[in-house]
């Protein structure tokens, strides 16, 4: 996993609540055994007018010319609900997103993002509204500083705005250091084996 410390990028606003992982990556694109090839199918049913994905839907926000170099997705409540498919964060990451900001995320999706180094940031409704206002017209460039748990941007009035966000201590450590979480836990085999030795025989 790549280390995440700071990131500055263009924000694209996706003004839809309850975006589920079926919408993020539909089921017909889950039949791969590799970890790549999902970004092109991100938001397939909204992004393309045809089944084969050859005709982009000009109305969909990711297809608008002004948002082509986006790397921060601004979303609404309950983002990533539904299926546990990690293919959804894989598709977002492969498309070029480094950060997803929403007022709330589904639990499994949130964990999956952290596990692959895609930073999910929860902000309150008021902060999210401010960002949606600023992001209209592809005018919002935002800096995420993971070390200090802040995001900052210059608003349309020319004022510098800072929001702080929370992230679990260990989750932050893993993101900042690109920790191989499996390797980390494998260093604790003695503790795990001691636990196993005490388990009841039916377990």
């Amino acid at each position, binding site marked *: 996993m790549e280390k995440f410390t700071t990131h500055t990028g263009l924000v694209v606003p996706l003004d839809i609540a309850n975006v589920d992982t079926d919408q993020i990556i539909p089921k*017909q694109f*889950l039949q791969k055994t*590799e970890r790549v090839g999902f970004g092109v199918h991100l938001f397939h049913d909204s992004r393309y007018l045809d089944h084969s994905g050859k005709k982009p839907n000009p109305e969909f926000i990711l297809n608008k010319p002004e948002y082509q170099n986006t790397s921060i997705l601004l979303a609404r*409540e*309950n983002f990533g609900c539904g299926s*546990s498919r990690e293919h959804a964060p894989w598709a977002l990451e492969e498309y070029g997103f480094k950060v997803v900001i929403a007022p709330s995320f589904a639990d499994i999706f949130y964990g999956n993002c952290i596990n692959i180094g895609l930073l999910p940031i929860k902000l309150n409704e008021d902060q999210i509204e401010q960002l949606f206002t600023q992001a209209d017209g592809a005018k919002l460039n935002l800096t995420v500083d993971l070390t200090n748990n802040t995001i900052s941007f210059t608003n349309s009035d020319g004022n510098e705005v800072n929001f702080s966000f929370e992230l679990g201590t260990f989750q932050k450590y893993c993101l900042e250091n690109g920790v191989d979480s499996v390797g980390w836990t494998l260093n*604790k085999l003695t503790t795990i084996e001691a636990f196993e030795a005490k388990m009841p025989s039916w377990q």
Partner: protein
Amino acid sequence: MTISTAPQTLYEKLWQTHLVEEKADETPLLYVDRHLIHEVTSPQAFANLRFHNRPVRHPERTIATMDHNISTRSIEIDAAGEGAANQLRALEKNCKDFGIELFGMGHKNQGIAHVMGPELGLTLPGTIIVCGDSHTATHGAFGALAFGIGTSEVEHVFATQTLRQTKAKTMKIEVKGHVGAGISAKDIILAIIGKTGSAGATGYVVEYCGEAIEALSMEERMTVCNMSIEFGAKAGLVAPDQTTFDYVEGKEYAPKGDVWQQAVADWKQLKSDDNAVFDSIITLEAKDIKAQVTWGTNPGQVTSVDSIVPSPDDFNDPIEKESCINALAYMDLIAGTKMTDISVNKVFIGSCTNSRIEDLRAAASIVENYSAKGQSVQSSVDAIVVPGSYRVKEQAEKEGLDKIFSDAGFEWRLPGCSMCLGMNDDVLEEGDRCASTSNRNFEGRQGRGSRTHLVSPEMAAAAAITGHFVDLNS
């Protein structure tokens, strides 16, 4: 198993008995007793094991099945297309290389992971069960902490038999009294989701209790717990009781002899203490629950069959109002339409929510009633019945249920996840409207541009024959 004497919820007991390590600066490490895997969410995890030259630490704690993208018309591995076949063959090779037991195509134990696990006794009370599938919550019906995980976590479990988890908040959902005649477990859970909204339990583990829950069979409890994820809960739980023990006893993989006796003694402690504190409590009166049908594009957009399609004006919250407008447009429904006036052209009876033997019996009994009056599946409707596993299929055929369905015009298929997510060729066409016993009515879930109404097996059977939703109690 040691359990603290301070009042605890069932979730806290399961947490405590599985806590391998808790340090101030690390996410807690939990032990995983049982890992179920399938073809879609495991290949990249195996690939990473190979890359790091790591073994599966406890292959005997992992069981594999083929369910998500298999054909329901043929047991041939190539029958559902090249992509599916590649994944199925990869699963075969991975299981062989890493020493994992696999229930492959046509195996007598093959089935949807969440149908197969319980019926084989792989699902035990007091355990932690994970699977790369969000409907793993199903196994919570046994008083197991069961939840869906992503592929990175599948890899973590393979290599370590543990997972890092943040402790969830606790929610108690009590369903008081008894449901009326003809009200199914599916109606109970849809009514709960209708009350909480589709994200009402995000961040929580839910425990279902109350007379109406205690009265349910194991199959029915599984239907309830299965849909916990549909209102955001990480997991759903029902405290194990005699119904649970009677179901598990004697199953192929269940403990036997003295070990069984010890297990039951331990499992009897698995209930929330009288004074246990929950972060949230929701109460429903069972007698108020009517047969449910979803009208929108998330499972929280649901109403009673004797009701009407709601209007955006019925919602005060601006997001819910907007969501209603979008849902009515996608579903091509007009506010005020009677639910019983909505016609369907497709019916799907199946999925990890409703494909167990009791579900098929319930649907078949409705079909029999109509058949006795000379009615069969409407000519305008295509209806399929997909049993959840080969064991369910065999039992259903022994009871003649397949014949009841076939004689009435339903297609009797082979087990699999099928049209619940349409990864195989069981896909709806654009504009199709389906009465489905599955768990998600998301836009495009069963096929791009298709419309899904979530219902009970009884309602799906009645819709197939009448061509519309029916208030079976009127």
